[in-house]
């Protein structure tokens, strides 16, 4: 099995001419617009009857993917979730289950 490497075309927006001497970054947080791109295998799903809105899943999420929604419950942003399962393990009330996406 040999994989052919795809030639990535450089976008016309950014070339080496635009980098500064020593590759100094003058703006902070340049990685902000990027997303991981890979979808998680297992995604958390909340059972709203069991959930007491304590927010422990929110505190323990290493990817900052869990957000508080307007109704006070918590939800996941699947662009950033990596499917580690910490929220499922740490929920005291068993409200979070890991399921396959879809």
């Amino acid at each position, binding site marked *: 099995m040999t994989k052919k490497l795809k030639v990535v075309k450089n976008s016309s927006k950014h070339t080496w001419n635009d980098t500064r001497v020593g590759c100094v*970054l003058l703006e*902070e*947080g*340049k*990685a*902000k617009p*990027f*997303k*991981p791109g890979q979808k*998680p295998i297992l995604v958390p799903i909340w059972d709203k009857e069991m*959930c*007491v*809105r*304590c*927010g*422990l899943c*929110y*505190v*323990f*999420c*290493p*990817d*900052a*993917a869990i957000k*508080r929604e307007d109704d006070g419950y918590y939800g996941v942003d699947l662009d*950033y979730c*990596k*499917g*580690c*399962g*910490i929220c*499922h*393990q*740490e929920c005291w009330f068993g409200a979070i289950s890991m399921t396959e996406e879809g």
Partner: protein
Amino acid sequence: MDKFGLYAPQLLPFKEHFIPKAHPACMGCGVALGVRQTYKALEEKRDWMKDAGWEIPYKQPLPGNISKSKKEAKEEIKPALLTIEKRDQTNLFLCFDNEAVEDKPTPTVFKKWYPAVAVARGFHYVATACPSYPFDLIDKVRRGMESEGNSYIHILSPCPVGWDFDSEFAVNIGRYAVESAIFPLYEVVTGSYRLTIDHPKIRPVEQYLKLQNRFKHFKQKEILTIQAEVDREYAKLREGKV
């Protein structure tokens, strides 16, 4: 279910300053979790941190240059602890320790305990923390910011890849480390020790070691030597005579 209106996590600032959410860490990374929690603590005081792509100066060694970063870790952390204290400055050092610098875990060689080095160098505030106890960690970072001299915080960050366990237990395993007293949580304010979390019932160290596959080769005799060492150190901490 609405018996309690307010839970402790809801007192934290909800705005995320952990800006590059697409961080390059693996899933269930303890370092990413610790960094995110320190962001919560330093919410209003981040003017001085605008320097790098991550909004704070940070260094993440890649698997390819482990040997280099190992050397760097030895060359950079130690002089930082040794020399910066001479300058008349107030710095906050955060060491995210995933115990990867050591070559192989052996029961006869224990890891270099940097908090003790920092205490010996006269840091004003030294503490150990773990992201499994988030409010403890946030309190300590805030207190470290407010202290007048240098401060150093040593943060145990479980590494699912390096320690070889399932990523969903990353928070749980840090809790085991604290409950088995192999990583006690304490703070040192100008030289006086105080345990911040002291469990009345200490777990056997074996329970913590058996959870990780990196300690798979340990024998019963070796576990007992570790247990003896941990008990000795923890008895000192409890009495405050270190």
